[in-house]
């Protein structure tokens, strides 16, 4: 925990420098630093501290803020678990965006198609369909890798762009399109398919966060307590040895990509049924963050939970920061990158803070994709 915490501190510090030195007023103050050093310093302090206080207020400062943090955490967590799971099986799933969109399509379809289903059936049905659509989209790169050796990094990137167009295309069909409207937005999911709010009407946090946490636990359990997980990890760590020991490497690749796709599809479904409610063109943005999350959480479900809460908080807080200071929302992306960089380079953080290496921390780090090797 020490290193990630210090990494966060370091990232926020560097982020503060970016905020300070791009704020026009503060910059002017620095330009006349010699004349009035106090003013430059106090303006800098104000610029950074106000931004960060707002960031914190918007993420943890109130019930509303907490709810928003969890709202953002939900899809991030599920998508992060997907990338992490694939990493464990030796696969690099950059296809999150495409699979999320697949999940959107699946869940919105079920969501608006049935009027008279009780929520207790409708919600799980819609979630499941989202997951199945995601799994189907994940199957393709898994299958191609297993059968032809096509590298999943390329195929998933291509599939993202393809899915982007699939969404545009379905949004021109009668079935999806709102009656009488020609804006490319689909019908909205029926109320019976919406994920129930869990903290009262004023707050957006919905059942999806529970689902996501349960899935995180489930993934931990599968990975570390079941024979399936053992197989995944074996294939991920040494596919040759796994094949030799009688495990089907090709089968594992396909299965793992399908599971990963299902998780991202579910991420899409929870977002659709909990927040979004209708399908519209464009990427969701969660799929790319998910890669960072899995890396940050070292492909461990527990780590991914913490990482996605952090990122959820940054996303939620960014809105408040934008609203109450003039800091553009994109600074959050910069801070996210910095956090990952510092977490990934513990030696760098230690060097900065002059922390001694602890024996336990010298142990091997999480399993990650190392190369293109197919």
């Amino acid at each position, binding site marked *: 925990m020490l290193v990630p915490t210090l990494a966060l501190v370091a990232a926020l510090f560097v982020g503060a420098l970016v905020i300070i030195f791009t704020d026009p007023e503060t910059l002017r103050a620095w330009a006349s630093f010699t004349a009035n050093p106090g003013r430059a310093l106090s303006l800098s302090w104000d610029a950074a501290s106000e931004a960060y206080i707002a960031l914190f207020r918007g993420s943890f400062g109130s019930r509303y803020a907490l709810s928003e943090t969890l709202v953002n955490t939900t899809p991030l967590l599920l998508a992060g678990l997907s990338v992490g799971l694939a990493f464990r099986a030796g696969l690099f799933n950059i296809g999150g965006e495409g699979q999320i969109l697949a999940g959107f399509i699946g869940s919105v379809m079920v969501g608006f198609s049935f009027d008279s289903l009780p929520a207790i059936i409708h919600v799980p049905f819609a979630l499941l369909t989202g997951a199945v659509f995601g799994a189907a989209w994940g199957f393709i790169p898994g299958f191609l890798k297993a059968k032809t050796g096509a590298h999943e990094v390329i195929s998933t990137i291509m599939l993202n762009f393809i899915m982007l167009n699939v969404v545009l295309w379905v949004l021109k069909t009668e079935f999806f399109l709102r009656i009488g409207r020609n804006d490319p937005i689909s019908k909205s999911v029926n109320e019976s398919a919406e994920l129930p709010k869990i903290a009262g009407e004023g707050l957006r946090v919905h059942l999806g966060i529970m689902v996501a946490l349960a899935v995180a636990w489930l993934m931990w359990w599968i990975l570390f307590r*079941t024979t399936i997980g053992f*197989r995944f990890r074996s294939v991920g*760590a*040494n596919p040759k*040895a796994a094949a*030799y*020991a*009688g495990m*089907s490497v090709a089968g594992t690749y396909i299965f793992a990509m399908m599971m990963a796709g299902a998780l991202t599809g579910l991420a899409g479904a929870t977002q659709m049924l909990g927040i979004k409610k209708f399908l519209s063109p464009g990427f969701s943005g969660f799929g790319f963050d998910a890669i960072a999350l899995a890396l940050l959480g070292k492909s461990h479900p527990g780590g991914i939970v913490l990482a996605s809460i952090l990122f959820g908080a940054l996303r939620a807080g960014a809105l408040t920061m934008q609203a109450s200071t003039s800091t553009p929302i994109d600074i959050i992306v910069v801070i996210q990158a910095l956090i990952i960089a510092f977490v990934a380079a513990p030696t760098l953080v230690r060097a900065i803070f002059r922390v001694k290496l602890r024996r336990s921390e010298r142990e*091997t780090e999480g399993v990650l994709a190392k190369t293109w090797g197919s």
Partner: protein
Amino acid sequence: MKVELRGVTKRFPGVVANRDVNLTVSGGEVVALLGENGAGKSTLMNVLFGLYEATEGEIYIDDQKAEFSSPADAIAAGIGMVHQHFMLIPVFNVIENVMLGLEETKGMGRLDEDKASERLLSLSREHGLQVEPYAVIEDLPVGVQQRVEILKALYRNADCLILDEPTAVLTPDEIRDLIGVIQSLKDAGKAIIFISHKLKEVLEIADQIVVLRRGEVVGTTTPSETNEQELATMMVGRDVQLEVSKTPSEPGTAVLRVTDMHVRDDREVKVVNGVSFEVKAKEILAIAGVQGNGQTQLIEALTGLRKVESGNVTLGDEDVTGASPATLFKMDVAHIPEDRQADGMIGAFSIADNLVLNTYRERPFSKGILTDRSAIQRSATKLIEDFDIRTPSARSPASTLSGGNQQKMIVAREFTHAQRLLIASQPTRGLDVGSIQYIHARIVAQRDEGAGVLLVSSELDEIMALADRIAVMCAGEIVGVLDRADATREKVGRLMAGVRDEAPRPPSPPVAEGEGS
């Protein structure tokens, strides 16, 4: 030239690999370095070659103190090394490998392969090391690769040559050749340090023998003053039995029958070409042959790791052509793979997990889809004790084991499930005498309990020690099958080199009865 190591100590975190080692070698002299796995031989040589920096101690070249901070310094001082694991780049050709780091160029940094090739060929003639300069390394047999390694050192004008386990992968003939080469290098005034686990060779070519144990020099002697048994004892620190005790075989019915097998390698080259043989219960059939003659692919095809192009494999009465490793496992086939680190284990996993790599889905290690971690742990603890795997804990990552112990771990895993057929590829490659003796005894025990054993080895000693019958493989074909009683080292060696001077027994169809007598 005279090279001296004085008081060299090398510490790794938690391990002292060398402790206060002194060693001297002069021009025209061969010093053999002996020791168990992990005794510190490679480490010591890496220090001399500038790959590692000694924690304490000094190196003197011709009585001048030398500082090697990188191999470049050592090379400049005239030291050359042929590493235990070859330092050749598989996709480069011979010339490229040899001149790497010391390239001949013509304008604009362009490589001048022809010029380098000339120099290489003249060296090659001088020392009797034949190579084809434009051949790609990965296409070459190991013996030739080793010649390239030696040439690489000579190309750099090495006066002192370190050979780390150079004979581990060679055929008897190649070993003969190598000994000839060493002799010629010695005559040319080179100083040579020779590392080996094979006591016979050491006694044959060394002028001086230095024995290391746990990083320390425990004895210095000469071939005339000592013998194999004494050296073995000195290395291990206790008495070891060099010969496996083995009763004659009483072969039963055929367990494995292979007919007219054809297999291609990764590059779609046909490397197994119509191979037929059979293995009976309670016998050890050894496939002898120089590495790279198709044995690897043959075994991969037999064990479901590679596509069988054509041909038939039956196990008992069942056709298992192209069966998956999992199917074979269920049919009680055990397999010790050739490349233990790449195929046999998962370095990042604990020893306990590695011990259930193929049984994790069976009781008691799992119930339904749940793994039972305590059962896995218990079984591991027992196996570690039974098979004498040296490790602080079953939870340690397998990658922290020494080569010999990694092999024991794999053997432990493979020997614990009931057996019909054991396939063992190069089971003792690179292991020290103690470990070899242990694994050989287990293989024989397995046979005596009723299993058929298919042993693949390029180690003639191993073949002679274990086999009941010997099939020799060369260029993708079985060029002869001999009974142990008829087999001499010479005969097998000649067959390995592809010389069929006496009418070979027809490799197919297998003449089952005729061979038993």
